[in-house]
């Protein structure tokens, strides 16, 4: 485990300034309802504007519409978008992970089909990992694909599929080789790409969030035909590909910035008043912790650019960052010490209400922190994950 301090270069600072100027112009404070980090609104027009500036699919090759930028450049764009509460939802998953998976494991035909659209901010992806009986134990997925002429026949059900109703495609982990008694669950899995809205036999339904909002979906497959050209990488190697994919979604600013817009708005709504010790201690603690975690998270991006695979480091940052988000929300609730409603006239209170309702999900989504600790501790001990 090694985290090395790093700093932004002049070019990187210029990018940061450019992103800030863009946001100040497009979404001046007060003009929009900020999102909570990556749980941001879907806004195709905004995604397109970002793409026009080269800020979607940044790390993908120019050959496929990408910009061959560094992980740190992407970090800079992403952290500014998230802290601003910008509506990055539509391109979020494709930009963070699916594009990278297709680029790394797919073939040129697939790259040509998907990457330019992703980089244009015109293709939203959802993820099909969890199933009713497979959550933390992901390798036990039972959605199965049976061989057919030129492709596979898929049957099964995926759940917690965030925003499948607003996205376009779906990357799905399924079993292409039946599991034999006592066999290794991690073998025989594959990743396939499926068009959400134009696939016969695919049914999409909401799984309402605890307060009735529609984020999650259930996606069921009844004899869905998936052609061979939609299988990403090598059939049967899906577990390893999927593990690589999950490493992309760990340790970035999305794991510690979700409540930032809430805190910024609290500061905005208390400005002009004399802050007492309670408020100073609160703002001081939050500011300092963000500074500390951001330094760690940024250094992970720098390690990726140096060609390393900082999987322990990114697991540590994600576990720490999401736990911190939850702790922070508790501190804010105690600080406010008053009744909350999503209907409040105060933007801060609306945001904090949303934080309270969604907060428990922060340490669950993308893998519970319990599973993350297991992964990270094995790495610390030098054991295989």
């Amino acid at each position, binding site marked *: 485990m090694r985290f090395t301090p790093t700093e932004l270069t002049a070019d990187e600072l210029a990018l940061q300034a450019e992103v800030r100027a863009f946001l100040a112009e497009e979404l001046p404070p007060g003009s929009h309802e900020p999102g909570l980090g990556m749980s941001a609104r879907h806004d195709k027009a905004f995604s397109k504007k970002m793409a026009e500036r080269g800020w979607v699919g940044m790390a993908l090759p120019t050959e496929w519409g990408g910009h061959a930028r560094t992980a740190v450049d992407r970090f800079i764009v992403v952290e500014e978008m998230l802290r601003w509460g910008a509506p990055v939802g539509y391109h979020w998953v494709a930009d963070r992970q699916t594009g990278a998976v297709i680029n790394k494991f797919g073939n040129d035909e697939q790259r040509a089909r998907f990457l330019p659209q992703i980089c244009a901010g015109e293709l939203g992806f959802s993820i099909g990992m*969890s199933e009713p*009986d*497979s*959550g*933390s*134990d992901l390798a*036990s997925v039972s959605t199965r694909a049976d061989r057919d002429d030129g492709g596979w026949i898929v049957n099964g059900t995926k*759940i*917690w599929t965030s925003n499948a109703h607003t996205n376009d495609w779906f990357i799905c982990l399924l079993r292409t080789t039946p599991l034999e008694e006592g066999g290794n669950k991690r073998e025989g899995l594959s990743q396939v790409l499926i068009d959400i809205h134009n696939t016969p036999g695919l049914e999409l339904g909401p*799984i*309402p*969030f*605890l*307060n*009735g909002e529609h984020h*999650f979906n259930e996606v069921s497959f009844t004899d869905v035909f998936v052609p061979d050209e939609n299988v990403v990488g090598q059939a049967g190697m899906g577990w390893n590909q999927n593990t690589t994919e999950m490493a992309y979604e760990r340790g970035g600013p999305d794991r510690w910035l979700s409540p930032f817009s809430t805190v910024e708005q609290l500061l905005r709504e208390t400005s002009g008043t004399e802050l007492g010790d*309670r408020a100073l201690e609160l703002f001081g603690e939050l500011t300092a912790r963000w500074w500390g975690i951001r330094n760690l998270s940024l250094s992970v991006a720098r390690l990726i650019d140096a060609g390393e695979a900082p999987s322990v480091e990114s697991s540590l940052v994600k576990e720490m960052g999401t736990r911190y988000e*939850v702790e922070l929300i*508790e501190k804010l*609730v*105690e*600080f*406010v*010490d*008053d*009744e*909350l*409603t*999503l*209907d409040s006239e105060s933007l801060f209170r609306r945001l904090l*209400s949303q934080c*309270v*309702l969604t907060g*428990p*999900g922060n*340490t*669950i*989504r993308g893998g*519970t*922190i*319990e599973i993350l*600790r297991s992964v990270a501790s094995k790495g610390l001990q030098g054991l295989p994950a």
Partner: protein
Amino acid sequence: MSELETVDPLITETANRLFGELCTHEAIQAAEDQGDAPEIWAAFAETGFPWISLPEAAGGSGGTLLDALEVLRLVGYHAAPIPAAETGMLGGWLLTSGGLELPEGIVTVASDHSLTIGDAGKVSGTASMVPWGRSAERLAFVADGKVASVPVAAATVVEQRALSGEPRDTLTFDATAADVADAPSGIDDESLRFRGALSRVAMMGGAIEKMSQLTVSYTNERQQFGRPIARFQAVQAHLVWAAQDAALGRMAAESAGHAAYRGDGRFEIAAAKLNCNQAATRATKACHQAHGAMGMTQEYPLHHYSRRLWTWRTEYGGTSEWSRWVGAAAAEAGADGLYPLITGGSAA
């Protein structure tokens, strides 16, 4: 031992059966979607439970404060979507204390110092976060040494909701004719705040206990890696912490109830609200984490309890407010009186 007053087991049994039948997962959800639950309320009112602890002579159902708190514990345990506390031990208590008429329907309460009583008993002002304002017949409040009962039909109502999804409306009155009476000694903003806190801890104790039980069941049924997730140490920690907070919350609520039944009970109510607020924060976190994504959905019932706890922990005084109150009591007791305060409470 000096026997503590007990609650008639029939009350517990009847309320448990009633709520068990009426407050199904689907019915609680429907109440949230519609913004009220007239059938549940009607069945509840039928039993006379809303008016327990109010004198029969004044139109109440009789019974003790402890009986009323036991019903509220079960309101919390079953997430019953009804203004039981407001109609009875809060609003009804204000009205009957002042000798004002107890209406047949729902009574709600304004406790935010927003309403004023003008000349000739006309009430004006805008009260926020009024529980079930939209469904109430009368709104009760206390101000300037007077207790008032205002007809809600005369108010402009803006419908809003707490994090629990339950109604917390904004009601505006403009010189509305009200029934007004002098508040007897001891009936004031402060006593309403303590009594409100007592109502909330009763419900919180019930809700945390239910959450803890749900979590034990779920983690024993849910299998991952070939065994129930309750076999994993990381999950067991959540079970233990939730069970502790269920025990702490209910014990605090019941102890405060006994103290308030016997006398002043302010120390115990304040300490109980502080404990329940913190227990709610810890237990909702533990139970949600143990449930994983399932707990974040509407289709699984955990949120009925967790969201109510997030609401109740901020009503009638949050953690900081009550900690300052208890801290002042400790400072007043002084070093030599600190432990006697902990063991003897309000009576010390």
